[in-house]
């Protein structure tokens, strides 16, 4: 199965219309056109993007995910995203989605998921981990005294691997830049360039509370992608907007074909739908709203137990 035959990986860079390494765009219009010519490359690249997103979702297994693997896959997604942004493919996709009528609650969902939930991260601190192992059987392990801060509280994020639905929803709003910018018409297309950027500007969606919230990429998303290793400060109490968000989800599932071939004529599509369609050949990205809600309630419940309220 040779999806990327040798020597054809970077068709448009071979044509010399774009300086790859420097990132210099050159004349935008002709290079974009040149890229559109290589539809098989675009398809392959899209397929690679889908594959990568699925791999990240499947990270949440019983055993802690391999962080190195997750990071490498996430970097690959970022690279694809950057390239698609540079050659204009990304804007086309996001504009098509923006043109579609997004229900308000989906915008709310995006905003909520974008919101910074970790007060420590907001403060710019880096809490030192206090790795806690639940059980040590059979050995008389000595008590451990860790130097540094000791956090014993748990965020919702650390428990969320048990609900893949929530995690997949977060991906949309998270570092892969798919969520926050769909409602916007980006002139410069810088929205998804770097996941590291705060992207607070880009995350402001129309029709929302219009809060000046610091909509940097959701720390929970990072946690879910990169594993739930940290025990950090507790998340704020469950947001009523979250409840609302899952109450009205009506994911329309789209074929991969539709997404790839019929971007312009795509029917109504919201943030969740795109992920659904992208991973339609994989596990269902979003289940019904009821299970999402029950998962959230379960998470609340678990958190209450652990925090000891």
């Amino acid at each position, binding site marked *: 199965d040779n999806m990327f035959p*040798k020597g054809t990986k*970077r068709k448009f860079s071979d044509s010399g219309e774009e300086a790859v390494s420097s990132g210099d765009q050159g004349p935008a219009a002709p290079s974009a056109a040149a890229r559109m010519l290589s539809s098989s490359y675009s398809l392959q690249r899209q397929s690679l993007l889908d594959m990568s997103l699925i791999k990240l979702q499947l990270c949440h297994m019983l055993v802690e995910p391999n962080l*190195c693997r997750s990071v490498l896959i996430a970097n690959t997604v970022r690279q694809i995203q950057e390239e698609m942004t540079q050659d204009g493919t990304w804007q086309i996709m996001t504009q098509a989605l923006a043109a579609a009528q997004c229900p308000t609650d989906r915008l709310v969902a995006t905003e909520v998921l974008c919101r910074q939930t970790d007060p420590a*991260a907001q403060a710019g601190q880096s809490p030192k981990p206090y790795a806690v192992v*639940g059980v040590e059987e059979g050995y008389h392990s000595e008590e451990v005294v860790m130097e540094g801060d000791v956090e014993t509280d748990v965020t919702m994020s650390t*428990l969320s*691997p048990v609900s893949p639905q929530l995690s997949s929803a977060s991906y949309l709003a998270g570092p892969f830049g798919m969520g926050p910018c769909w409602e916007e018409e980006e002139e410069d297309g810088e929205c998804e360039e770097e996941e*590291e950027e705060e992207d607070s500007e880009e995350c402001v969606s129309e029709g929302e509370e219009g809060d000046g919230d610091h909509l940097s990429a959701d720390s929970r998303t990072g946690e879910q992608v*990169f594993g739930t*290793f940290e025990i950090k400060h507790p998340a704020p109490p469950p947001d009523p907007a979250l409840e609302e968000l899952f109450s009205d989800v009506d994911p329309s599932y789209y074929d991969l074909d539709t997404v790839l071939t019929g971007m312009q004529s795509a029917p109504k599509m919201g943030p969740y739908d795109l992920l659904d369609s992208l991973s339609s050949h994989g596990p269902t990205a979003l289940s019904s709203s009821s299970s999402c809600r029950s998962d959230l309630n379960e998470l609340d419940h678990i958190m209450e137990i652990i925090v000891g309220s």
Partner: protein
Amino acid sequence: MKLRHGSTLTHIVTATTLDSYKREHFESDIISTVEFNYSGELLATGDKGGRVVIFQHEQESKNRPHLRGEYNVYSTFQSHEPEFDYLKSLEIEEKINKIRWLPQQNAAHFLLSTNDKTIKLWKISERDKRAEGYNLKDEDGRLRDPFRITSLRVPVLMPMDLMVEASPRRIFANAHTYHINSISVNSDHETYLSADDLRINLWHLEITDRSFNIVDIKPANMEELTEVITAAECHPHQCNVFVYSSSKGTIRLCDMRAAALCDRHSKFFEEPEDPSSRSFFSEIISSISDVKFSHSGRYMMTRDYLSVKVWDLNMENRPVETYQVHEYLRSKLCSLYENDCIFDKFECCWNGSDSAIMTGSYNNFFRMFDRNTRRDITLEASRESSKPRATLKPRKVSTGGKRKKDEISVDSLDFNKKILHTAWHPKDNVIAVAATNNLYIFQDKIN
């Protein structure tokens, strides 16, 4: 070691004791680490089930002096058990990630074994005598009635069947949030380092309740994480120097004398990327899976997905030698990404004189490179292709259209049969190769 045309390796032992008992392929038997001790007398293996099996080199038999002795099972013990982290609702695997021996200081042997979270110091000691003739208990161990004792005797040490005991002497726990990928004993023989994905800690072998964090690359916001630590090792002679490799194909050499926290490297090794071969998989295949200092301490070797590179510690901008392990896989990277094989972490090792290096590949193939003659050889570790005392036949993967006789085509390779762990005897030409749940030990034929 001279690699003459045709193999010079002789197959002497064909499987672990586990294989001889069981025919089925149990996942817990998958060997996850292989390591010779400093003298080469002992060979330790760790497996996915948390067990450690130690082999000992038997003395050469007087009848057949032309053959080196064999390795037989010396000790087996359960090092780690599966655990459950209740706070995170996640299992902690008992798989042994690494074993490192301590230099021998007395009759007992010590080794460090680690899983994802906990490092343990094990003492392996022999007992070949036992005291007999106790006054207060009889030979069965039952207590004697003191009033029945009419005379006293002095217990005498009598020989007994050799018994090898393994006991945990130290448990170094709760210092790693992320998965431990490396441990390395320092040349001072008092400290060792342990590395996980984002941090490296320095321990004293005597102290278990405290460790010093010497490297921390965790970003303040996990969203910004783009690089992890993949391997780390102490310099073999300079106890203040260590290196760690990253998922972006870089190696940092750090000096512990410079600062308490070695986040700033002393040297930074990275080979500039070849722009003509850039693809979406470039970063993944550049990720370094293993780093090993040469015995001399002058060079280090890194393994990435397709190649092995030898670096001179005095030259940071490029390696001095690059060896292609399985370049024919470069056109298959997308498939290998799909089936996750691209994330396989191959190890590499030096021979005792640093003149040859070895690493594994797929289809139970492993590769050896002679640094002086630049010759290389591909061999296979499988029961079908090797019989006891037989000479291994070199293997070849055909890359072109025409497949010669005895060659195997790339598409016929079995990617489930991967050799990730190999070890080379510190002095002799004896190698240990772990092929899934089988251990092969090969030695050079003495002519």
